[in-house]
């Protein structure tokens, strides 16, 4: 997730200040509370207040509408390459859209419940779909050779697996960098590990008492980071599945999103406004387990790690500023 779902994420002042350099200013085509930065930082998916979705080029500013108002858009996410965008709707349908200038579009009914969570596998073979109050789903989204000239319905994705939960839905998923492992955590607080070749559950972890909302593998795939209502990072050894370390918990806060910088050793942890503390963000050094707040002049509305570096966007009216942190 490269879109910060909190309405106002206030980044703290810091003794260890990261320098921010503006990368671009973009005129948004509408008033927007929610944007998503593409993985290479060249495009923004902009959700307007009427719930339409537009793709806006960061450099050049051209925009095109890919989802109109009234379709019930609820969530959206870029594929790892940025060439595709997946959107989930309140009626349980999902759409995969060409984000790189093509008009390709595949729309199918994945569930009868609202789609809350979407996640592409790193190799773009699978799309993970998380309906509210329902088990997770894995859809094979590869274009099948058999169906290229077949009727439209034959070319639609096929469900590859269902990922169960004791109750509720899935709250976060992440795939290892090599795509061989998928981890999913549910409303039931159970973290389950899956082999993506067979979709068999290989292990589970029931050590969380509170919900987990963010999962992320380190860039070398050796560690898994988890965070949620317990307001701290829990670090797992991927080879053994064992819990290695935990950062101190930050009372009154809740982890909403985790990213990892290009050095592979620094995690960006965003705390949203679900807790009693105001939203803020921290950098955690995974080797020393020391942290530093990130300084920003305005509340970011989206961001992510682009080419190994942290980029954050802020919005003033219809002007979006994208800044890079060194």
């Amino acid at each position: 997730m490269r879109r910060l779902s909190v309405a106002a994420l206030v980044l703290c002042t810091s003794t260890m200040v990261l320098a921010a350099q503006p990368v671009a200013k973009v005129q948004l085509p509408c008033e927007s509370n929610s944007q998503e930065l593409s993985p290479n930082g060249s495009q923004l998916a902009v959700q307007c207040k009427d719930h339409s979705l537009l793709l806006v080029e960061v450099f050049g500013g051209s925009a095109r509408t890919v989802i109109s108002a009234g379709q019930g858009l609820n969530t959206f996410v870029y594929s790892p390459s940025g060439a595709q965008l997946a959107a989930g709707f309140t009626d349980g349908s999902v759409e995969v859209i060409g984000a790189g200038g093509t008009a390709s579009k595949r729309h199918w009914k994945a569930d009868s419940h609202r789609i809350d969570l979407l996640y592409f596998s790193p190799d773009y073979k699978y799309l993970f779909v998380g309906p509210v109050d329902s088990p997770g789903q894995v859809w094979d989204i590869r274009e099948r050779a058999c169906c290229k000239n077949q009727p439209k319905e034959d070319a639609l994705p096929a469900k590859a697996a269902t990922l169960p939960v004791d109750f509720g839905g899935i709250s976060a998923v992440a795939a290892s960098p090599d795509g061989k492992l998928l981890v999913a955590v549910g409303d039931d607080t159970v973290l389950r590990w899956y082999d993506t070749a067979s979709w068999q559950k290989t292990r589970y972890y029931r050590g969380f008492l509170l919900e987990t909302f963010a999962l992320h593998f380190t860039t070398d795939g050796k560690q898994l980071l988890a965070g949620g209502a317990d307001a701290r990072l829990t670090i797992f050894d991927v080879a053994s599945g064992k819990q290695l370390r935990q950062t101190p918990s930050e009372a009154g806060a809740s982890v909403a999103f985790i990213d990892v910088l290009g050095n592979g050793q620094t995690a960006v942890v965003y705390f949203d406004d679900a807790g009693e503390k105001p939203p803020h963000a921290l950098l955690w050094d995974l080797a020393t387990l020391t942290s530093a707040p990130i300084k920003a002049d305005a509340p970011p509305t989206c961001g992510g790690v682009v080419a190994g570096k942290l980029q954050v966007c802020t919005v003033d009216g219809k002007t979006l500023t994208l800044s890079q942190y060194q």
Partner: protein
Amino acid sequence: MNFTRRELLERCAAFGAITLASSIPVSALAAAWDNAEKKQPTPFCELGPFYKREAPNTSTLRAPGDAGMPLTLSGVVYDVRGEIVPDSKLEIWQTDNDGHYDIEGYRYRTLLQPGTKGAYAIESVMPGHYPTRVCQHVHYLLTAPGHKPVITQLYFATDPVFDGNPDKNYTRDPLITSRELVRPVVIKGDPKQIIAAVNFDLVMETL
């Protein structure tokens, strides 16, 4: 051995335990009985971010001296045929009267086992208004073997947000998807100790 209503009626008719008018077939009578007893499943409402596993089994959430109007919540766990679900587990959690969830501990959290009668009752306080939510609410998570888990929230018809008209105004909280979740509040007790009482039956779907 458990019989469905239809099976029971058919067996009673077969053995002469009941006599039916010739114009009423057993199947029609069974269907009428079934329809009369059928209950709608409790509507879903978001789990929210403050669920915590392993809550203690206690019916007394209110401690002496706790701020807020005392509140009694009670109800019965049914299935959609109107029959008691005897082996359910019911987790209930809410904020204190100031609108704070206990994340570190288990204040205002409980895990109940309604038992063979399917009944539950807890002593609590009226929850406060949580800052990022519109309405006062109490969270419910109900599980039972062979049944779809129920995740929902209870709301109070007396909530000032509804301006005295929950029928019209319940959608002021975007998370309230059904009017059924807004329950009437009965004031009980004496002038020295007023207690708000809310009945909230829960209905589970079979898998």
